[in-house]
């Protein structure tokens, strides 16, 4: 496989069209939720992402955004992966994903844990694209923090 095919694996191209979780969803009453807007000024990629929890587990992630196939696919993959996870385990997955992305190809992705997100391993060899892959994940991390604050206040 060429570097380019490593970058744009079929799973990624499929997710970039499927876009799981696209379209912001009104949170259920009683659920804690948080939302953030992430923007990559270099290329204009942007995402508004909402995380909804029932206190312990992630109930739903929804988003709207505009960007390259890498950024859109990574949001789609995240939505699948996060459903039903505890907030700690989602934060653990974000940390794991970030480590792979920043490794310049040195760290292999754990397919067991990361599922379809493991297909993004090829992105780590394209430093200019790591930000694209991370966009939704950083948004999720921050939305979760916002949800925690909101819950704490409520």
């Amino acid at each position, binding site marked *: 496989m060429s570097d380019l095919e490593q970058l744009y694996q079929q799973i990624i191209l499929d997710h970039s069209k499927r876009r799981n979780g696209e379209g912001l969803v009104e949170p259920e009453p009683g659920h804690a939720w948080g939302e953030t807007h992430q923007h990559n000024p270099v290329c204009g990629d942007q995402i508004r992402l909402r995380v909804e929890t029932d206190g312990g587990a992630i109930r739903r992630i929804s988003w709207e955004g*505009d960007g390259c196939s890498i950024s859109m696919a990574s949001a789609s993959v995240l939505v699948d992966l996060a459903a039903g996870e505890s907030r700690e385990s989602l934060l653990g997955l974000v940390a794991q994903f970030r480590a792979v992305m920043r490794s310049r190809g040195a760290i292999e992705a754990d397919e067991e844990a990361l599922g379809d997100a493991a297909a993004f391993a090829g992105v780590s060899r394209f430093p200019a694209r790591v930000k694209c892959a991370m966009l939704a994940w950083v948004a999720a991390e921050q939305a979760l923090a916002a949800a925690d604050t909101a819950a704490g206040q409520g």
Partner: protein
Amino acid sequence: METVTGPRGSAEAEPALTPLDDTEVRRLRGDFTLLERTVNSVPLVYLDSGATSQKPQSVLDTEQHFYENFNAAVHRGAHTLAVEATEIYEEAREKTARFIGAGPDEVVWTSNATEALNLLTYSFSNASAGRGGEAARRFALGPGDEILVTELEHHANLIPWQELAFRTGASLKYIPVDADGALRMDLAADLVGPRTRVLAFTHVSNVLGTVVDVAALVELARAVGALTVLDGCQSVPHLPVDVKALDVDFMAFSGHKMLGPTGIGVLYGRRELLDAMPPFLTGGSMITTVTMERAEFLEAPTRFEAGTQRISQAVALAAAIDYLDEVGMGRIAAWEEHLGRRLAAGLASIPGVRQLGPAGAARIGTATIDVPGVHPHDVGQFLDSRGVAVRVGHHCAQPLHRALGVTASTRASTYLYNTDDDVDAFLGAVADVRGFFGVGA
């Protein structure tokens, strides 16, 4: 200082009227070492000169030659080296001035066009605060005054004016573009009025490559006594530009886009205007008498050149101008127009790819595309895998992209060293984009 070496083969140069052709361009390429490199194991096809140009050997050699033989602070000290350095530095200014049809006192060195436009707007700001006295009153803006720009502008010729408007209470208006990105000249006449104090606009769109009708806009501005400011970033490197013929009051451009080094740019201003403007940056090298309370300033252009200047960069820019002059700006413009037409014709025959900008407009060798269904970032990545270097994104022109109904685009921009093969490599790669991403198969 003697020129190090001109364009390769210039000794047997053809008469100036012979058009630049593929054969001569291939010879010129020999002067640009970088163009020989590969990326991703394929030969580099550099089509991003709109962002920054590559540099010929003579420019690199001149800068090194200066440091090896003449380096000293200019306009300071009486030792031989300082005198020689000053002479070379001022020769560079004269050459640059001649290149755009200006007088040497009308060329202010800046770091780049962005700094040139900020210098201008901050000087106007200072005039608005009363600095520069009676002479500077003509630059003072306040509530009721209008600054007019266009929707085509690069952020560098937009944000400084926005900020000036905020600081002074003047209002900012713009001449819009139509859905194709053509400037609405039919609306311009209504937008220019007695309140218009400044009309700032680009000569060539950095996104679309289209050439703006400078004469028509200058005529409108003159009729109401407004100052004209031209962004020459994409025209000075690619077209013969004469500020007196264009009759503009100010013009900004950058050296790095015209074969010169980074770190050097120019603000051209009419002599009598520059001499009446208050300074922007202040400090050493721009004063006559200084007391603990106040300072008297030198005349233009030194009034605007506070602190130790970009000496080697100015000298290297002069070498770039020598190179351009030897090839001939008219010939360069004609060659790039040819490349632009080749790009447009090729793109028109690729399904699912749309060239942005008004069809049939006068253009430099720039083509910007939208591939519905494939994000420009992905288009650029795919092209890069074929060695084709283009710019993707909003090209520092978000309002224009908004007007065109896209958030980003992919731009190929040529220079005198690009061949027909470069254009064809780009077209070939673009033709494969949708297939690779599985769009509209």
